[in-house]
């Protein structure tokens, strides 16, 4: 586990975290076959349509929230995968992740193991929500309602 990563060099966390390796991909072995079968199903136009609907809904919804900065916005929605990294003014990414967790939503928060990129954008961390092919538009709607509620809680 690292402490800081900069272009100039990397420092490691104190012991014992220094020697903490990533979790081995044990779950990946038995799930490889069902995953391949799932990839075949992804060609299903209905799944693709749902994914596109989620993308449009999310891009539209996130851009409406005041003080929200979305990273990696493509020139056309077709180039975008349903994965959204953002930060919100007056709402720390860690606080948002904690609250969303209690609302039943798992998001990634922090430096995303990409400290130089965080420096590039001038932030200490971001929040990332990723939609999988099995997620529905209804779930995206629930996410947006929950995010708005969480921001309201933090801004008071």
């Amino acid at each position, binding site marked *: 586990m690292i*402490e800081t990563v900069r272009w100039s060099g990397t420092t490691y*966390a*104190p012991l014992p*975290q220094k020697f903490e390796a990533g979790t081995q991909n044990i779950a990946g072995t038995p799930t490889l076959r069902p995953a391949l079968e799932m990839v075949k199903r992804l060609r299903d136009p209905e799944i693709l349509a749902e994914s596109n609907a989620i993308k449009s809904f999310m891009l539209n919804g996130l851009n409406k929230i005041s003080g929200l900065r979305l990273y990696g916005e493509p020139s056309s929605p077709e180039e975008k995968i349903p994965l959204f990294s953002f930060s919100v003014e007056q709402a*720390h990414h*860690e*606080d948002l*992740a*904690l*609250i969303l*967790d*209690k*609302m039943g939503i798992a998001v990634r*928060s*922090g430096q995303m193991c990409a400290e130089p990129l965080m420096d590039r954008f001038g932030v*200490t*961390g971001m929040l990332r929500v990723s939609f999988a092919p099995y997620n529905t538009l209804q779930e995206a709607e629930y996410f947006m309602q929950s995010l708005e509620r969480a921001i309201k*809680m*933090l801004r*008071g």
Partner: protein
Amino acid sequence: MKSLQECQEEVVEDFSMYDEWLDKYEYLIDLGHRLEPFPEELKTDDRLIRGCQSRVWLDTRREDGRLFFRADSDAIITKGIISLLIGVYSGRTAAEIAADDFSFVERLGLRENLSPTRANGLASMIETIRRTAENLV
């Protein structure tokens, strides 16, 4: 001044009044907003607690044999958690703090409700307070 144990009981009782975790977070957010302002010039690297996902600064002052803690964080829920810890341990003697087992934190249920990296941050905060006291005993 209330005893350390009385103070801990009070914190556990206040926190257990809320059944839902979202209400507990609302409570921590409120505590975080009410935490005494922390001077910007004290936000130095030597006061920064390592291992927290959010940045946490802890300043310790010693007066008449007692330790006084001030702290800040860029995350408001973390600030609320700090506020609980400071409320319990600030103004105590180093011996009193060093002799405590910090088990009241377990009873708050915070650790199991935080992700591993965030629980590590909480452990780092506790460890810093404990070590500061132990070094002075």
